């Protein structure tokens, strides 16, 4: 899976600009994802790719459209040095995998081949032949992401 690398403070206004918020259609949101800082994002992402970023990823607006747009773009995981708190919560709630790992976020370069073991928190950089260790989520959060988010998880557990 290919890494797409960005800097610090990637905000939700660039992840999905407000001019598209009159839509709730995932595919439409995905088609505009990141376009204000990376015009080619939609075209270059293949299913399973990951985003690697710096500090405070997802800062700004509480719009859930931001993690939804990233997930619908085919991104399988976001690795950052740190996340803004509302984005962090939203990502878990909608079932977008995220990992906080300053070492990996620093070291991984654009286009590096990376794989993520979400269970162990192990991030493997195949291009650089390196392994980084992130703190894995507790079981209930992992399950929530695997189930597809908070609501899907609630429904499953109600049954």
């Amino acid at each position, binding site marked *: 899976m290919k890494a797409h690398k960005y800097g610090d*403070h990637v905000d939700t*206004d660039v992840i999905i600009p407000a001019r598209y918020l009159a839509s709730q259609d995932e595919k439409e949101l995905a088609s505009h994802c990141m376009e204000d800082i990376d015009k080619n994002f939609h075209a270059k992402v293949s299913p399973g790719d990951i985003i690697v970023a710096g500090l405070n990823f997802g800062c700004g607006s*509480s719009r859930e459209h931001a993690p939804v747009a990233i997930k619908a773009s085919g991104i399988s995981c976001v690795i950052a040095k740190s996340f803004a708190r509302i984005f962090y919560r*939203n990502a878990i709630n909608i079932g977008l995998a995220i990992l906080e790992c300053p070492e990996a976020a620093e070291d991984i370069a654009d286009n590096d081949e990376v794989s993520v073991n979400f269970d162990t928190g192990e991030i493997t950089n195949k291009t650089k032949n390196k392994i980084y260790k992130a703190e894995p989520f507790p079981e209930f959060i992992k399950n929530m992401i695997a189930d597809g*988010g908070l609501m899907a998880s609630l429904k499953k557990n109600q049954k």
Partner: protein
Amino acid sequence: MAMTMTQKILAKHAGLESVHAGQLIQAKLDLVLGNDITSPVAINEFEAAGFNSIFDKSKVVLVMDHFTPNKDIKSAAQCKQCRLFAKRFNLDNFFDVGTMGIEHALLPEQGLVAPGEAIIGADSHTCTYGAVNAFSTGVGSTDMGAAMAAGYTWFKVPAAIKVNVTGKKRPYVSGKDLILYLIGKIGVDGALYKSLEFSGDGLKELTMSDRLTIANMAIEAGAKNGIFPVDDITREYLSGRVNREWTAYEPDPDSEYESVINLDLNEIDCTVSWPHLPENAKPAIEGHDVKIDQIVIGSCTNGRIEDMKAAAEILKGRHLASGVRGIIIPATQSVYRECIKLGYVDVFLDAGCVVSTPTCGPCLGGHMGVLAEGERCVSTTNRNFIGRMGHVKSEVYLASPAVAAASGIAGHIAHPKEVI
């Protein structure tokens, strides 16, 4: 165990004697808020999960403020969906065009938030209500959808940063200057996951409007919430607005803070945040060479009557510089009416400005003041991210109403004393 104001409110709502930073708790909610952008997503989630009831029809509040009066067919459909939901559950507090205002100006004004309450809203600036000693924080739509049904949600108890305010405000300096200065000092992630707890002798210098502006922008430092203690200024503001009983929470004298920031008001002058992050704060007097195309005075940060007054005092008897567009947006219907009564609307019109019905509109590049490529705006809003108010090559400079008004007259970023 010693606790901060935030921790005490969370403990109370979790039914616990005490809580500590990092603890995961489940807390009852006094209010769940959403707007016309975030509520439709929450309603979809609520319905998809098969919920048939809401926890309390007086405690779910929907405010149609972002893309209203509706700017296009899609945003009209979003409001319609909210309207039908409000009708289905007979919500006491559904604010549509005619009664709506910008949510975080409207709720305090209507007495819907009170000290000691726990509030979530699917809008990042929900942290505003810390000004009246409530714990309030922004969440996403899924959290909102689940909370509308359940009436509770989970939180990680935040650690705190204490902001100790001393000194006296300088002329033309307001809460906006203080918060931009503070964000400049600690950065846009300086308070990440934490609460900003305000204290100190200098708080008596801060009006309720100042405090609402400061708490509103706590999120721009990454904070979970910003919170003030209750004093005579708070009590005066609440009297006649909030008729239910409320409890004020003080921090324990030995409560723990990760750090203490001292802010001496004497040292803070009118401040502007340059593009493209709120942390790029500099004194307004350094903006002489920044020519501008537009000013916007309004928003959940600075759309209250005190903000309109500050702008009117500068604009009175003066006119916008040639080529500058002035857009003034009173945040609620009652602020709008006051502006008419007090003659501010005449002042604004005489100065060459337009006065709009309440809307978040231009703040997030929605409508009513979107910027073209290369244009610059001095705005009393809260974010100056890339593309926030329009084209990706437009620029937003964050400032107080007094600075925005002065800049409109000067045609470049200006300190009010330069035009008075």
